[in-house]
């Protein structure tokens, strides 16, 4: 009896410790980034592009990378939405009833979701070579679009599934076509679409491997789709590799910027999705 009690308590303590380790790793990461990043943080970092001698520790900031990342993630999210909203609607509205096809499609999107970004990067690079596009903002956007489509489709699909069946039936019975019904559904899931946008944006802004081959790098803010664009994660990666202490410090500060942006996005999207699930019946 005592042995069993001991065993129970032993594992209970072990479980609490494991939970602390898992949840604590989050604080450890964010804490480390803040601790190292804050001393190097200043206004120049987010308001200036790299000046002359930036990479040997002279003045400048990473505005080019911030804007570049926003362009890439934003462009990819918009392109991705244009593809994934119709796809999600098609799967749910037009294919409803054909369970085998729907399930296979869902598996395929799950698999696409699991494919690592480096493979998307390599594939995007192949496409660019094929069409003769050089490393540019356009290439980066295309590669990241491939990366975010599965995320968008999966999220939208889940959201559409929460719409009550009665709503569809009601609009259909009033003589609406399936397309008109889809418009009703789209209005209903607007907050869900916003969640999907945030998720995709968050993934797009943080990913390196997909833009490494495709977006290139530049110290200037791109003014056209065909210019190479810097991205924040790539800027962090490059700066961290520098032997100059000042530049490494900037990598920490850039990491801090990226962390804050991503945390805000994640918190926003989870708050939104919670509110959304409260509204749905």
């Amino acid at each position, binding site marked *: 009896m005592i042995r069993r009690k001991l*065993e*129970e308590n032993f*594992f*209970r303590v072990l*479980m609490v*410790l*494991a*939970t602390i*380790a*898992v*949840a604590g*790793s*989050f604080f*450890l*990461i*964010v804490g*480390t*980034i803040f601790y*190292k990043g804050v001393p190097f943080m200043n206004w120049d970092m987010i308001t200036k592009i790299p000046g002359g001698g930036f990479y040997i520790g002279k003045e400048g900031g990473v505005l080019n990378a911030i804007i570049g990342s926003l362009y890439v993630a934003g462009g990819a999210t918009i392109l991705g939405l244009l*593809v*994934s909203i*119709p*796809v999600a*609607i*098609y799967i749910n509205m*037009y294919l409803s009833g054909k369970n085998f096809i729907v*399930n296979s499609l869902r*598996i395929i*999107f*799950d*698999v*696409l979701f*699991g*494919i*690592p*970004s*480096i*493979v998307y990067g*390599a*594939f995007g690079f*192949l496409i660019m070579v094929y069409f003769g596009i050089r490393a540019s903002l356009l290439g980066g956007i295309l590669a990241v679009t491939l990366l975010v*489509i599965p995320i968008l*489709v999966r999220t939208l699909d889940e959201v559409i599934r929460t719409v009550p069946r009665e709503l569809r039936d009601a609009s259909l019975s009033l003589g609406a076509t399936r397309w008109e019904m889809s418009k009703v559904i789209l209005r209903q899931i607007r907050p869900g679409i916003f969640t999907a946008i945030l998720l995709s944006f968050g993934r797009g*802004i*943080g990913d*390196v*491997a997909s833009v*490494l081959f495709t977006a290139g790098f530049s110290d200037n803010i791109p003014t056209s789709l065909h210019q190479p664009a810097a991205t924040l*994660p790539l800027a*962090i*990666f490059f700066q*961290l590799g520098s032997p100059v202490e000042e530049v490494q410090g900037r*990598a*920490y500060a850039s*990491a801090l910027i*990226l962390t804050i942006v*991503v*945390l805000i996005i*994640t918190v926003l999207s*989870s708050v939104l999705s919670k509110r959304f699930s409260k509204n749905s019946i």
Partner: protein
Amino acid sequence: MLVLTLASVSIVILIGVGLYYKSIPVLHKLSWGTLLTSSQWKPLKGLFGFFPFIMGTLWVTAISIIIALPLCLLTSFYITEYAPSRIRKILVPFVNLLSGIPPVIFGVWGVLFIIPLIQNHIAPHFVEFSTGYSVLAGGIVLAVMIFPLIVSIVCEVLNTIPKELKDASLALGATKWETIRKVSIRKASPGIIAAVVLAISRAFGETIAVLMVCGNNAVVPHSVFDPGYPLPALIANNYGEMLSIPMYESALMFAALLLFIIIFLFNIISRIILIRVERRLAA
């Protein structure tokens, strides 16, 4: 809409075909067997042996699973069986936040925290000298990256186990832990396997975080303190120079193809297991 759906689904096929097409030159020159088992990596001489990189990937992945699996299982049991709902409500968002952190941040954390930790505190107990850049560092960073994935899937699976089963076990006088060990784990095992398979495939493909902490030395690692060079890191690191050496691009695309095939299979397997689990519960 049909066209868009077909187009986005066919990305899977396009990626496979495109990468295969690009790796044909290197496949013509060397056989699959040579490519996979040779340790000779001399691009300038046209020798492409992927064995060190495959071993690097396997080491890093194995270490990360060994670290992450027990921790994540214990955490999932705690969250689903023990934690009061107040604590559960605080815990779950943190797991979500962790999954939102970009890979490069994990990499920076690895460089700033894990590397010095290994170099100054862990390695000196076991080996004479280590820079800290090792497969162990890669494994630890990866383990943290796959925490959210495993915890969220296992929690979901555990929540689907009928309460009656656990109640029956508890009513027979079993302690909570005994119930977990003899009922929950047994019932949840397909789901746990699926979670592990998914986590492995995630770990396989992770690029930048591992690249930053692994040391990137093209030799087969012999201990956890040796540097390693996983496949994705190889692709990412050599992008710039690959165009100037013949066959190099083809070899790197072969590496990408290899990753794609393995991850594709692993994903399909785990998804099918998960769907079975879901169905069994619906029935």
